[in-house]
């Protein structure tokens, strides 16, 4: 813990510091507490008000609940050094067995207890994914509707076996059980407390249990020493809300926080000036996009959409807005999607001349195209819009940017192009292509995208087939059509930057949560 | 309380002035060569009354403040000495202020702390200067109020200044000045903010107190009447210098310095009338004259009621009937609160009557906010007391006049008409390019009048147009008003608290008291043979700039009643020396006698019928 005691940095304040030297006091950093394990303090940009694991799904909620709950299967992000691993390993389930295209069966560990010392049972698992909580018409956790698999039945086979049956073929089920939908909660306690009660005093099986929850201010977790994966390495973990980025950085440098989340690439030079802190980060499994509403406007012509697509220089956006840290993908795919991913797929290239040619062919007359964005709801979205507007103008596209105040205004009357993002929550090609661009999706249903029948047929294949060369081919073919049709345009993968005390052994992962389990958190 | 002259002071050698100012100069700290008071030397003989008279900026008040070492922070005394009984006074005047020399000021309402009741104010001073405390101090406070003839003294102790009238507050200030039993009282414009009848009361009080206590008095005023009334010895100041000093009777009878003479000449004479000699002989106005020029204005049963705080209703104007003939100038005179300004505003349509009608040239006058009102501006104009508040500070005088000319499409050549108008009010062409703040008070009022004349109005209401001006300027502006009235063939209403000014410019005078006209008649008749007891009191309170004519005045008692609590019967009866039982029961009507004079007084009515009022009552 020597990293916590260090001399005041010499700088422009040396004189004042010297004068005040006698009075200078170090704030007792939690790590100095009398314990064999340190108290970890993480400065976050925000917190959720409900710690029920599905209610908490968001970029500020998942980093907390991931420390409190476990999933049946475990995606080991750290199998890759850059935190992008896609290996599915046993979790609360020791094994998974696929009975047919619609049915999987899991075998549960028998040594897992919840934070209230009650053992985890097959009933708890069935409830967590069951009709009452997840897939009925009025689920106890209403938000489950956005994330749930297309389940038909979840049943307890015996004390250590639970069976999942979907309505249609779903070969991604195993991956879903390792995703944000897969956190297991105790049935009796949950039914007793209800959604709000549970969200206030939640209980899981994870490495840390709730100690204190001050809404809007902090969540304090303490080590669950009975954790089945082993003894947690921190005595407590405190997530404290510090909304202002500059303040988070200051508190990190002053030693009050061990980790500061959601920093900007701009902060990197500052972090580099101090030896005891550093920046660590990862590209998130998410893509910022442009999406088009084509109803009754010039965007109904795919040549105009493609022209817009061709104008964008993603590397330039990355360099200018993200200090080169964001990810530019080769097509609308990520490596973690597995064997359907094609590393040799050609990356997107800027081609203004090509765009001009397309526009000429389409007979585009300079009719205005509006591009709507919220004021940086998506990080850097306004700056990106302005850069793209320049390129579009070069090609002759007359794009007007409208900065809106809320989503109602963005999606309201007169919508043409706007920004959007797609997450990749499964290590599988089903997301986001078959969830956000399919036949019943908003883009096809409301935004007037007349997708070729082939495209929709390909999505059906991707959704229902197990991994195979045929599925991979279908995926790549769907991506070809997607790029040709350009109902939307991927831009880049955002970068999540953490500031951290250099001495702490911890790695970020490529998802919007933090891995604080014993194997990824070490103190000198 | 001592009646004799002060014994605490060192006995003064014979002939040593009680107070002497020798070679006093006052400068601005940042411009030490600009003398605001220049080498002033004055003496106050023991128990005497020294008057300092001058116009604004003459340095008279600074001289007075120097005696107390109370000059504003930006100024300093650069030369001279102040001595009391021959002994120079130390800076800060410790032991002098309030104890040996006391001072009273112009606006008694503002010189009292609005948050302090009268009782603590007085007993605090008693404690400070005499060391009395508690009940003894309070008893002394009551005695002081008695000494200044304050009615119901004990009850006043709990009053705040805003609950008292101006005259009562000045009495309280005088009582406070007496608390230290001073040898000298400095009075800086002590009656300027008061009504004429109240002014007379206060001057009488000061005279009585001097006689009782043998106090020396230094009286500063711009008003020769006040000085003539109260001072034995007078110094005239001009531009920081004493231009003349002499015993009062000699100064007023044979002023030596031309400045003194010219000031005395500026006082409206008691006979004669402004520009009257020239009225017929003047060349006709070269401005185009409309065929319809010269209309009259008439008020019929005009009333205006305001709602005061707490829901009380105040009759500012009560059933007034009045007709002004075409080309006539009617003077309206009365003390503050008598309703004369309300009347003026109603006449030009700036306020809406509660009941009654106003007819200008036979047509009803439109009130605010409407096309008719805007059109009526071409016939009806008003001139206020404070020209600075009605002129736009950001526009030149010329622009403002041309703007009016163009708005009302008076002429195609607005510019040359503007210059003509300026000439008509005796302004020069160069004034057209000036802003209001660059003009003197008199010039501003001329500019306002020129702007009012721009629309070629037929009727102009002048509301105290010269009250804010110095005496010499006042005379010029009055002359100018009389002049343009003739040249423009105006029908005018001239409102003032000063009956001398009103008489000087008006053909007829209406005297108002508490929202009613109590007497109306030919100006000279009213002035020389007033019939109504109030008119008589008003005239009696007029101070003549001649000490030999210190009158045995008919001083009214008390103050005008609160308009929210109007007395029954004749509103004047509580103060009227002739009041009888009938007067409190029955309001008198305005009756016109054979000589054309109208009076609202039971006594006059009875006497007109040949009976003796005292007998009839």
């Amino acid at each position: 813990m020597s990293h916590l005691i260090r001399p005041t940095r010499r700088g422009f304040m040396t004189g004042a510091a010297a004068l005040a030297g006698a009075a200078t006091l170090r704030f007792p950093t939690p790590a100095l507490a009398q314990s064999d394990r340190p108290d970890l303090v993480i400065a976050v940009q925000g917190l959720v008000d409900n710690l029920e694991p599905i209610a908490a799904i968001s970029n500020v909620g998942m980093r907390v609940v991931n420390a409190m709950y476990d999933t049946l299967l475990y995606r080991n992000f750290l199998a890759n050094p850059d935190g992008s691993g896609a290996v599915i390993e046993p979790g609360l389930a020791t094994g998974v067995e696929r009975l047919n295209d619609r049915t999987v069966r899991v075998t549960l560990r028998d040594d897992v207890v919840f934070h209230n010392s009650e053992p985890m049972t097959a009933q708890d698992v069935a409830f967590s994914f069951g009709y009452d909580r997840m897939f009925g018409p009025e689920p106890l956790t209403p938000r489950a509707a956005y994330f749930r698999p297309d389940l038909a039945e979840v049943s307890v086979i015996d004390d250590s076996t639970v069976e999942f049956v979907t309505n249609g073929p779903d070969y991604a089920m195993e991956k879903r059980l390792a995703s944000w939908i897969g956190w297991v909660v105790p049935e009796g306690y949950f039914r007793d407390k209800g959604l709000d009660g549970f969200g206030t005093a939640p209980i899981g099986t994870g490495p840390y249990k709730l100690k204190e929850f001050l809404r809007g201010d902090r969540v304090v977790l303490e080590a669950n020493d009975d954790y089945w994966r082993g003894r947690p390495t921190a005595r407590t973990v405190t997530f404290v809300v510090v909304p202002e980025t500059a303040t988070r950085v200051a508190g990190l440098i002053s030693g009050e926080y061990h980790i500061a989340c959601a920093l900007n690439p701009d902060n990197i030079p500052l972090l580099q000036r101090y030896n005891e802190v550093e920046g660590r980060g990862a590209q998130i499994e998410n893509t910022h996009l442009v999406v088009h509403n084509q109803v009754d406007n010039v965007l109904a012509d795919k040549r105009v959409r493609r022209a817009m697509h061709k104008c964008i220089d993603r590397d330039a956006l990355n360099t200018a807005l993200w200090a080169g840290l964001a990810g530019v993908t080769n097509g609308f795919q990520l490596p973690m999607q597995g064997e359907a991913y094609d590393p040799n797929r050609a990356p997107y290239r800027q081609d203004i001349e090509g765009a001009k040619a397309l526009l000429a062919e389409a007979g585009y007359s300079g009719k205005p195209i509006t591009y709507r964005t919220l004021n940086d709801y998506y990080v850097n979205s306004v700056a990106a819009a302005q850069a793209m507007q320049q390129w579009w103008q070069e090609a002759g596209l007359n794009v007007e940017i409208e900065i809106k105040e809320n989503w109602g205004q963005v999606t309201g009357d007169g919508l043409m192009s706007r920004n959007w993002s797609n997450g990749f929550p499964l290590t599988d090609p089903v997301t986001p292509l078959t969830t956000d661009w399919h036949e019943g999706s908003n883009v096809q249903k409301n935004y007037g995208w007349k997708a070729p029948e082939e495209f929709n047929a390909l999505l059906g294949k991707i959704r229902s087939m197990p991994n195979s060369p045929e599925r991979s081919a279908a995926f790549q073919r769907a991506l070809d059509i997607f790029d040709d049709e350009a109902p939307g345009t991927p831009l880049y993968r955002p970068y999540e930057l953490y500031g951290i005390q250099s001495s702490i052994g911890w790695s970020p992962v490529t998802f919007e949560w933090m891995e604080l389990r014993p194997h990824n958190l070490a103190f000198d | 309380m001592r009646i004799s002259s002060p014994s605490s002071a060192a006995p003064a050698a014979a002939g040593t002035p009680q107070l002497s100012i020798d070679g006093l100069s006052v400068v601005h700290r940042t411009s030490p060569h600009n003398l605001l008071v220049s080498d002033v030397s004055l003496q106050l003989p023991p128990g005497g009354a020294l008057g300092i008279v001058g116009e604004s900026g003459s340095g008279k008040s600074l001289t007075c403040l120097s005696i107390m070492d109370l000059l504003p922070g930006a100024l300093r005394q650069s030369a001279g000495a102040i001595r009391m009984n021959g002994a120079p006074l130390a800076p800060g005047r410790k032991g002098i202020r309030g104890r040996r020399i006391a001072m009273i000021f112009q606006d008694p309402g503002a010189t009292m702390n609005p948050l302090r009741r009268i009782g603590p104010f007085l007993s605090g001073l008693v404690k400070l200067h005499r060391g009395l405390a508690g009940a003894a101090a309070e008893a002394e406070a009551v005695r002081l109020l008695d000494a200044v003839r304050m009615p119901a003294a004990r009850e006043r102790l709990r009053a705040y200044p805003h609950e008292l009238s101006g005259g009562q507050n000045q009495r309280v200030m005088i009582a406070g000045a007496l608390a230290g039993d001073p040898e000298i009282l400095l009075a800086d414009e002590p009656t300027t903010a008061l009504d004429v009848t109240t002014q007379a009361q206060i001057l009488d009080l000061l005279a009585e107190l001097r006689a009782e206590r043998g106090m020396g008095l230094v009286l500063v005023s711009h008003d020769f009447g006040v000085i003539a009334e109260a001072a034995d010895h007078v110094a005239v100041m001009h531009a920081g210098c004493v231009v003349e000093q002499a015993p009062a009777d000699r100064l007023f009878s044979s002023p030596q310095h031309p400045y003194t003479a010219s000031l005395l000449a500026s006082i409206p004479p008691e006979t004669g009338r402004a520009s009257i000699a020239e009225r017929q002989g003047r060349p006709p106005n070269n401005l185009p004259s409309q065929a319809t020029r010269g209309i009259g204005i008439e008020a019929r049963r005009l009333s205006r009621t305001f709602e005061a705080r707490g829901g009380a209703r105040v009759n500012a104007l009560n059933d007034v009937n009045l007709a002004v003939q075409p080309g006539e100038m009617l003077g309206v005179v009365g003390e503050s609160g008598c309703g004369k300004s309300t009347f003026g505003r109603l006449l030009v349509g700036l306020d809406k009557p509660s009941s009654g009608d106003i007819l200008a040239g036979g047509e009803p006058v439109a009130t605010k906010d409407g096309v008719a009102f805007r059109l009526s501006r071409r016939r009806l104009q008003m001139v206020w007391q404070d020209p600075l508040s009605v002129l736009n500070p950001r526009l030149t005088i010329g622009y403002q006049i041309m703007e009016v000319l163009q708005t009302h499409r008076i002429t195609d050549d607005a510019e040359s008409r503007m210059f003509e108008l300026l000439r008509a009010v005796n302004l020069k062409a160069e004034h057209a390019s000036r802003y209001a703040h660059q003009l003197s008070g008199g010039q501003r009022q001329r500019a306002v009048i020129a702007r009012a004349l721009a629309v070629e109005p037929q009727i102009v209401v002048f509301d105290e147009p010269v009250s804010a001006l110095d005496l010499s300027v006042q005379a010029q502006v009055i002359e100018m008003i009389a002049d343009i009235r003739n040249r423009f063939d105006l029908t005018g209403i001239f409102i003032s608290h000063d009956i001398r000014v009103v008489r000087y410019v008006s053909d007829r005078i209406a005297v108002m008291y508490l929202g009613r006209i109590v007497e109306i008649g030919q100006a000279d008749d009213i002035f020389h043979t007033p019939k109504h007891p109030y008119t008589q009191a008003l005239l009696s309170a007029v101070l003549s700039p001649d000490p030999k004519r210190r009158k045995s005045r008919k001083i009214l008692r008390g103050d005008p009643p609160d308009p929210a609590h109007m007395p029954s019967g004749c509103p004047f009866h509580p103060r009227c020396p002739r009041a009888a039982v009938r007067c409190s029961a029955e309001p008198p009507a305005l009756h016109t006698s054979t000589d054309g004079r109208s009076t609202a007084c039971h006594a006059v009515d009875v006497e007109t019928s040949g009976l003796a009022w005292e007998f009839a009552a």
Partner: protein
Amino acid sequence: MIRFVFIRTIRAILTALTVVTTTFVVLRITGDPVQSLLPVETTPPEIIELYRRLWNLDQPLWQQYVGYWQGIFHGTMGRSFVDGRDVVGIIAERIPITLELMGWTFVAMLAIGLPAGIAAALNRGSWIDRTVMAAAVAGHALPGYVMGILMIWLFAVELRWLPSSGYGTPQHLIMPVLTLATAYGAVIARFTRAAVLEVLGQPHVLAARSQGWPGRTIMRREVIPNAAIPLVTIIGLFLGGLIGGSVIVEWIFAWPGIGRLLVTSVAGRDLAIVQALVLLFSATMIIANLLVDLAYAFLNPSIRLRG
């Protein structure tokens, strides 16, 4: 006086009604809250309908409005659109936190502003006056954001005297209170200076000097009480304004009060909370105004004794 209080109170209530109604309507016509809360693209229509029913958004506006008032009279202001918790509870747990900040800020701004303003007025034109006024201009002009960050870097990062943010201990209070109190204290100083100068120029102060009172007595008896009347008005209005000023400071210093709640609720379009906060803010403003009126009347005998 009773009539005065009555009229002012009625006026205050009418103002509150107007504010609530306006916010209610404006918040609902500037965008469908459900669209803002739920990812429309991926939300099944039946879920959207469920949410609409939950918050009565399926009813006509006037019915929602009537329901809102009924709720207020039953002591509830609805449930958070985002997590369904009772709005009154959510706000109630934040209020003491903000009040702590506001209370100390109020004390500090007076402690800074009043003496500085009085000293400047009494030494008009001197170096004291010029220094105070220059500091006042700087203090007022420096945005709270810049001031806050500068203080964090000086006191938390460089000197390590104070915690960079958060709340709980007296040390945590110092920087946020100073940030707010500097800005408001600067304004108070200017108003105090003006008010004292105004009174110093009044004839009754000159009269008191002529009566032989010592300078301290004049200050205590003539100047301070009379200057207090306009100052009470200004300071009272600051009470309301402080809440607005707290938004930025709560943000920078991670102070979990209602200012920050407002920011997050507006961003999340949590109408129920925004609505309740607007009601709270306007009630604070209105009550502050009312108190100012009453204090003004109480301090000023010419109003107190009338009516």
